[in-house]
């Protein structure tokens, strides 16, 4: 239960014909740090070709470039970050983060953490968690480079978030997932359905913990870069039926979430999720959840 043919056949059953996709490098302007600096023009003067990403406010695709986008002074000064286009979507889906207490439950290496910080104002707090020491070091570097002031980082498994004894207004669950073939050329030889199922189990445990830590009227944004429905729609269907969560309508790139998966009929509200098949971006899945009103 692995290999390119096996997975391509699964995608075909879900309505998508496999095709090779070239990943495109994208950047996100850190609006607070780059304010008044006319960054796109500065980068163009360095020989970096930029194309505005139509579905993102601060995103640009990097075309031909005389310099590495990850080694300019502007990058090192935190004026922009390198972040895949679809990965820039989740942090923008919350209904406001200013003044809120936000949990970034699987934060490293920190692209979305710095994005959240960029969107937040005074009095806001980000609590960022991760378990891997090397990835935590990368997260700390990222926070320093982007001059983030409002974040506390703990070395803690997302499944133990309630040990912090806090309730969060917003929770970002960019959960560990199986990834997809666009960002990993050896993906088909590395991944099996067993990996997918193992990841799905961990993701459900993280979702359960997040639901426990969510403040009344709070929001969870769940995302993966996996194309496998076990990590996406099936988990959301499970969250609706088991955790008392409700899927919210979001307005972003992507197709409706699948409501029929390999013969299994899912809750109709799962169609409110957004599934992004590889093409303009890598493969991605994103969904916004709230507690149902009668849920404790």
């Amino acid at each position, binding site marked *: 239960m692995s290999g390119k043919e096996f997975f391509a056949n699964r995608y075909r059953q879900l309505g998508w014909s496999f095709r090779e996709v070239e990943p495109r490098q994208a950047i996100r302007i850190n609006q607070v740090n780059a304010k008044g*600096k006319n960054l796109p023009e500065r980068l163009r003067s360095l020989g970096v070709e930029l194309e505005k990403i139509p579905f993102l406010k601060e995103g640009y695709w990097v075309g031909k470039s005389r310099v590495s986008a*990850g*080694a300019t*002074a502007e990058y*090192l*000064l935190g004026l922009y970050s390198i972040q895949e286009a679809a990965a820039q979507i989740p942090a923008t889906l919350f209904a406001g983060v200013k003044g809120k*207490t936000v949990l970034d439950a699987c934060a490293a290496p920190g692209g979305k953490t710095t994005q959240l910080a960029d969107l937040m104002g*005074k*009095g*806001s*707090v980000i*609590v960022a968690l991760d378990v891997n020491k090397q990835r*935590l*070091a*990368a997260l*700390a*570097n990222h*926070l*320093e*480079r982007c*001059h*983030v*002031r*409002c*974040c*506390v*980082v*703990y*070395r803690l498994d997302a499944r133990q978030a309630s040990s*912090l004894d*806090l309730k969060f207004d917003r929770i970002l669950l960019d959960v560990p997932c199986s990834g997809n073939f666009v960002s990993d050329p050896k993906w088909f030889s590395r991944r099996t359905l067993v990996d997918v199922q193992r990841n799905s189990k961990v993701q459900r445990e993280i979702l359960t913990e997040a639901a426990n830590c969510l403040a009344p009227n709070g929001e969870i944004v769940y995302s993966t870069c996996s194309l496998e429905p076990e990590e996406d729609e099936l988990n959301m269907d499970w969250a609706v039926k088991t955790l008392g969560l409700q899927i919210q309508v979001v307005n972003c790139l992507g197709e409706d979430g699948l409501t029929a998966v390999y013969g299994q009929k899912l809750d109709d509200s799962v169609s409110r999720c957004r599934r992004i098949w590889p093409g303009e971006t890598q493969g991605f899945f994103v969904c916004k959840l709230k507690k149902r009103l009668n849920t404790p």
Partner: protein
Amino acid sequence: MKPLTVFASKFGGKVALNPEFVVEHAQRYYLLNPALRKIVKRNFYCAGMYLGKVKGGVFFPSFNLLNMLVPIAANKVILDRKAAWLFICGRDIFRKGIVQSMGSQRRGDCTLVLNEYGECLGFGMLAADLGDASGRVVFRNVLDVGDFLRREG
């Protein structure tokens, strides 16, 4: 707090930090905002704005701290575009790369290094009096933002 104030004084500036919001953890210093101060527990990995660390008795500043010093430090040099690029590649600076200098110009003094936009690229130490040296290295690179790449390399 002392390592921070001593470090700032090397640039002819006085950094004003409220000690209530400065936390030392594992020989690293962090500046918290009031909202963070309320919720931070002792076992954090990092928190708020990282200011620097003490290692082997020596203080290593963060780039956040250097940025805080820009408006208050007396000693600064502004580099031209080419010298700025060489500086962030870890190189020392020749006199001809310095467009403007402010504050001390004496050998051995610490100076912030800014680019043409006034953004802080790091700091260094004058290896010779700025007025004297022509064609020689006048400025030793001590820390530059290229460090972010070297750390992860």
